[in-house]
């Protein structure tokens, strides 16, 4: 085990995979000379040269498509979309091509492509630079979408994504790059399609991914201390495939669920999780499934407004208390009343 940042885990894993397999190469805007907008690829151009660390023109559709074509011939490109917002310029190539080629041609060509890209708001970047649109990709069969929340998962899921023969949207998060955690030294990939119970508990299931899995763990720890609550945390890790079994098994045990997402609520990933709980744990629920999600507005620049629009630890805490109140769960603070919103 080594303690390192999420950023370092990504960097080291990219480097190790490039050393392991000559077919792995990087493409993206400003990843070489500039060393990446968020410095994930720092130093790699110097070490591997322009052939394997390729700065592209500002042409998301062009270079995403070129990566898909190169992958069809057996290379294993890892491309960086500077932020997930810019990936929308490459939607045709990702959704109409990367996700379709294996099926549309009867399994004759696979697309071993990784699209690394950070989502997330909270950096005062305004409406077009603060979105979480992983939902677009998670909606599409043929795509795989993973969203690590910890440095250890950043490594294990990136290993899995690079070694997988299908297109994988690898969701990073601006707010996670500097977070630290223990990272195993061996290179065992994670299993795409599996959620993880990161904290066992019995009172309520708190579900999140990416930054919100982090928030979930913090809130669970905090409520254990202040309220004596025993909350189970499920980190989705994989948005497609979605591990419904793990979600439902947890809710069948705890009988209550709060779903967190750093995204708009309506039609969101939380909606899919809530519907899955309804399908698989309807008779086990003691309270309606509650969702905590971003306010449904184009993200404002002003710090005051931006903070209000993003789901906070307090929002999550309130949602948990209200849900448990609906269950009739008896804890001292709850008996005093529940804030109305």
């Amino acid at each position: 085990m080594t303690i390192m940042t999420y950023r370092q885990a990504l960097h080291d894993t990219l480097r190790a995979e490039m050393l392991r397999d000559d077919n792995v190469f990087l493409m993206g805007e400003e990843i070489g000379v500039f060393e990446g907008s968020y410095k994930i690829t720092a130093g790699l151009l110097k070490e591997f040269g322009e052939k394997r660390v390729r700065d592209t023109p500002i042409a998301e559709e062009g270079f995403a498509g070129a990566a898909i074509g190169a992958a069809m011939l057996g290379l294993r490109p890892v491309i960086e979309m500077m932020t997930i917002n810019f990936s929308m310029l490459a939607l045709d190539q990702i959704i109409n091509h990367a996700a379709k080629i294996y099926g549309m041609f009867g399994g004759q060509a696979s697309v071993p492509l990784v699209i690394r890209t950070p989502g997330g708001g909270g950096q005062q970047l305004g409406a077009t630079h603060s979105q979480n649109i992983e939902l677009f990709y998670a909606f599409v069969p043929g795509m795989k979408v993973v969203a690590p929340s910890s440095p250890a998962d950043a490594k294990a899921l990136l290993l899995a994504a690079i070694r997988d023969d299908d297109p994988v949207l690898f969701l990073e998060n601006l707010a996670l790059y500097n977070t630290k955690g223990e990272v195993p030294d061996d290179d065992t990939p994670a299993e795409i399609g599996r959620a993880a119970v990161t904290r066992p508990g019995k009172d309520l299931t708190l579900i999140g991914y990416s930054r919100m899995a982090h928030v979930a763990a913090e809130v669970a720890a905090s409520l254990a201390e202040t309220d004596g609550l025993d909350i189970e945390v499920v980190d989705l890790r994989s948005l497609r495939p979605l591990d419904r079994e793990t979600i439902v098994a947890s809710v069948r045990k705890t009988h209550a669920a709060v779903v967190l997402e750093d995204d708009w609520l309506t039609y969101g990933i939380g909606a899919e999780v809530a519907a899955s709980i309804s399908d698989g744990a309807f008779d086990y629920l003691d309270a309606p499934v509650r969702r905590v999600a971003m306010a449904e507005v184009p993200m404002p620049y002003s710090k005051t407004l931006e903070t209000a629009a993003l789901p906070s630890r307090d929002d999550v805490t309130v949602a948990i208390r209200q849900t448990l109140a609906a269950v009739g769960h008896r804890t001292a603070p709850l008996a005093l009343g529940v804030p109305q919103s």
Partner: protein
Amino acid sequence: MATQARQRRSAVPQAAPGERHAQLRQFYRDMVLVRRFEERAARAYTEALIGGYCHLNLGEEAAVVGLMSALRPTDYLFTNYREHGYAIMRGIDPKRVMAELYGRVDGVSKGWGGSMHMFDVTHRLLGGYGIVGGQLPLATGAALAIDYRGGDEVVMCTLGDGTTAIGAFHESLNIAALWNLPIVFVIINNGLGMGTTVAKSSAEPELYKRGAAYRMESARVDGFDPLAVRDAAAAAVEAARGGRPYLLEVVTERLRGHSVVDPAKYRSAAEVERLKEEDPIRLLGAKLTADGALDPDAIAAIEEEVAAIVTAAADFAASSPSPDVSTLFDYTYATPVPNDSRRLPGQPLFEPLPASAALLPAPDPALGASA
């Protein structure tokens, strides 16, 4: 359209007469094969044996055979949704092309692609693509992979005239030129994107001139002259093999509508009459006959041979089975992962609990049915 026809020109000097005639007789035969195959496909479509969209190469036969003759078997082709003729001229058995049109397991794409999505790894046809211009970035990436590995293959990427207006055209040509990739972009300019003329969709209607924006060599060639097309394509392919990407414009005609179901009402009566005269197969047949390189018996023999191939293709397609429903989930992912959905529309995500009634004690008959 008439203006455009006058702008056709051959880019490269032509071969010696004897060699020319032998090559042209082969081209004539191949063009007849594409023509009769497409006519059979149109018939099968009206018989509801083929579904979806169906875009035919009618009128583009000289372009198809000329271009395909310039490629080595190891070269790659990316093309669009009007690709049946290209598939056949890449060497794919017409039976497998027709079976794909019929949506059967023996189709080139196992019935998953249909008319717009023919694919064959062995013959290096890396796809017909149904989204206009979708193939351009992909083909550029295939050329990147060749360059990455130091191979000597070339990628040919065909596109329609309308495709030169999309962003991916600009992005792909720019990347190919910046990185000196081994790729030839070929614009099949039949003058019409569905019903919109080149003049109405492109500020520079001499489309090959767009190469200048990327310092890319480019040329325009008469798409009714298969030898001229072959020679121009060979020059382009040679440049690309040397790391100089190339833009070739092939000026041709679309004899029928955009697809089988398009009556092409946007065309004037005069234009329809002109197209009857300007049939590339009729023109080439007449020219070769006048030159003494073909005669009516030879033409009849070609028609007979081709008719047998096309009939065999249709028979094969009709007798090939439809894919089994049990294979529906076989091609979502190349690497299997847990929790991948294999649910049919009527199936629940989780096994439903037994009906509530089954959990209750049986009703007591003594109580009657009044409750």
